[in-house]
């Protein structure tokens, strides 16, 4: 891409919402005035200390931030058993699974609902895959008294029943989407269709760092609380920065939230983990590893697609990673070489899920289980005095049925 490396990796996107060749605003004309207005209002909010104050107050007192930074000593010991002499890095977790509603998604929802109210919008819509973003959206809507409609693929409705019920308890209307493979991509299509028909009163809370500009930027900014806290906590606890960061990638919001505050720390390596499903040579959801640049859902980014640009269906055991695209900033970070990307299969994620349950007494969501699988793989190659920090971005209560089925157990 660029012959000269940029001075900073943290000054993207440009004023047109482009991250290098990625990102942008690929939406129908009906939505254009709306996202231009959103950008204007977001700039105003950024310049308004009262906005930040309210955001921080809610994160602290409603969400429960800062989330702990935890040294997973028992997992570290377990991994060292299989490591060569002198190898086996210290494994640390950023515990965003302890947030209210059980995942990082709430950070972004708090930010976006404050923006929605600032813009005078009276109705909220959102898409959801695993249901975590749907639950987080329904939560902030209940808190602020706004009606909300959540679009969820019918396949995901079936595999994320607990979250479906939670959304209903919180007062949301959940619309099952049956088009396509009836997963996250299709839910997003349907949310966009609703939005274009209700532009005047409706705010679309996008759940990941993707979509038309300024969504990738603002979702990243709201999620960056993860990385900002982790950086300060790590310095405070160990006097140094981690050697490697690891995060699972669906659309990429928890990953960019962890990575972004560290991007200009040249000694901190970063590894984003896509879902390799049944394997990269079979059905998977790894758009960087197995896709190419294209345009979908408002942005240019890596997509799973055929030679005619038709989008192909993703597969992952984890509903939250089951998406054939990725946020545009990750596409750019990959091409710029700043962040490395790898993947973990369904089976590897299931193994890591069980490993964390047994060693640390933490039941992780299937999404970060992909990151944990990679952490185990990487830690054995790293020296004992090195630190690997992973984003434990969600808890696994929602996944126990899926895991039971995969393990052949009846609950």
């Amino acid at each position, binding site marked *: 891409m660029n012959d000269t490396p940029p001075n900073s990796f943290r000054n993207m996107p440009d004023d047109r919402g482009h991250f290098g060749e990625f990102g942008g605003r690929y939406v*129908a*004309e009906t939505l254009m005035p709306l996202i231009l207005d959103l950008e204007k209002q977001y700039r105003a909010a950024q310049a308004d200390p009262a906005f930040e104050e309210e955001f921080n107050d809610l994160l602290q007192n409603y969400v429960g931030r800062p989330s702990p930074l935890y040294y997973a000593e028992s997992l570290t010991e377990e991994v060292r058993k299989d490591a060569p002499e002198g190898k086996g890095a210290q494994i640390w977790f950023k515990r965003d699974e302890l947030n209210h509603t059980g995942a990082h998604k709430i950070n972004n929802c708090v930010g976006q609902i404050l923006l929605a109210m600032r813009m005078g919008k009276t109705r909220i819509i959102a898409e959801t895959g695993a249901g975590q973003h749907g639950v987080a959206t329904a939560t902030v809507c209940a808190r602020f008294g706004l009606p909300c409609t959540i679009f969820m693929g019918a396949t995901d409705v079936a595999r994320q029943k607990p979250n479906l019920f939670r959304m209903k308890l919180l007062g949301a209307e959940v619309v099952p989407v049956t088009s396509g493979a009836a997963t996250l991509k*299709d839910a997003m299509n349907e949310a966009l*269709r609703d939005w274009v028909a209700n532009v005047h009163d409706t705010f679309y809370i996008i759940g990941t760092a993707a979509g038309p500009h300024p969504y990738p930027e603002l979702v990243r900014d709201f999620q960056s609380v993860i990385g900002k806290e982790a950086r300060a906590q790590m310095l405070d606890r160990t006097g140094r920065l981690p050697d490697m960061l690891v995060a699972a990638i669906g659309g990429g919001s928890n990953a960019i939230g962890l990575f972004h505050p560290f991007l200009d720390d040249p000694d901190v390596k970063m590894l984003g983990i896509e879902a390799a499903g049944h394997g990269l040579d079979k059905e998977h959801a790894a758009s960087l590893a197995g896709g190419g640049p*294209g345009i979908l859902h408002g942005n240019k980014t890596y997509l799973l697609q055929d030679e*005619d*640009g038709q989008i192909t269906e993703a597969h992952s055991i984890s509903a939250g990673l089951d998406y054939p695209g990725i946020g545009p900033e990750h596409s750019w970070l990959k091409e710029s070489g700043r962040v490395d990307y790898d993947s973990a299969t369904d089976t590897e994620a299931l193994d890591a899920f069980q490993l964390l349950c047994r060693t640390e007494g933490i039941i992780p969501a299937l999404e970060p289980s992909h990151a944990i699988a990679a952490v185990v793989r990487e830690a054995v190659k790293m020296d004992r005095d090195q630190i690997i920090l992973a984003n434990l971005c969600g808890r696994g209560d929602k996944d126990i049925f899926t895991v039971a089925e995969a393990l052949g157990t009846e609950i």
Partner: protein
Amino acid sequence: MTDRLSSSFPADRAALVTFVTAGDPTPADTGAILDALVEGGADIIELGMPFTDPMADGPSIQEADIRSLAAGTTTANIFNMAREFRQRHPDTPLVLMGYANPMTIRGSEWFANACVDAGVDAVICVDIPVEEDESLGDALRAKDVAVIRLATPTTDAERLPQILSNASGFLYYVSVAGITGQQQAAQASIEEAVARLKAGTDLPVAVGFGVRTPEQAADIARVADGVVVGSAIVEIVGEYGKDAAPHVRDYVKSLSDAIRVARHG
């Protein structure tokens, strides 16, 4: 190439612009359906490129896209349909309409060349707004393929000049904020919008979204330069499948007849 387009807006009546999805129900059926549009009296043909994720379309066109893709329609098939149409109908303008990804996946120059090669006069890309025009527009204009812009009820006076910059062919007024195939807008709002748009451009203004009946088409024909009908035709193809052509022709004729007398009644 754009000449074919500008000369198809008659001075004394509105043009009828009709949309069908390429390859619906199968690639082999599209030729006869396109012929039926022309026989029925369509002045301009929009050929929809099916896409797996038609975010701006309602259920009728979504289903048409699914039928077409399930039948194996490829981009190569679509350009073949266009080329064969051009041979049979040298004077009827053909507009490709669709989404950004299938149009740009091989690069915008490849797409522009394929349009020229197949005799396509213009392109409407639903999800490339003027802000991202360079992704496709430059290459098309360089080859004299018209880039048709959309204006909507949310396009305000400040934004309109931007949309009109580099627009060619005609201006497509999407009369409702929403997806294809739903309600039609109120006549008064259409009249007001067309007047506003015509004050800003010399391009013909065609109005679409939600037009179903000959009466609706005639109402629009009284105030606009063109009437666009899509979902209603796609639904006929959905209902009759391989046998759709005569039904499509009869329906299009009913629209065309209504438009032809609209300004006299």
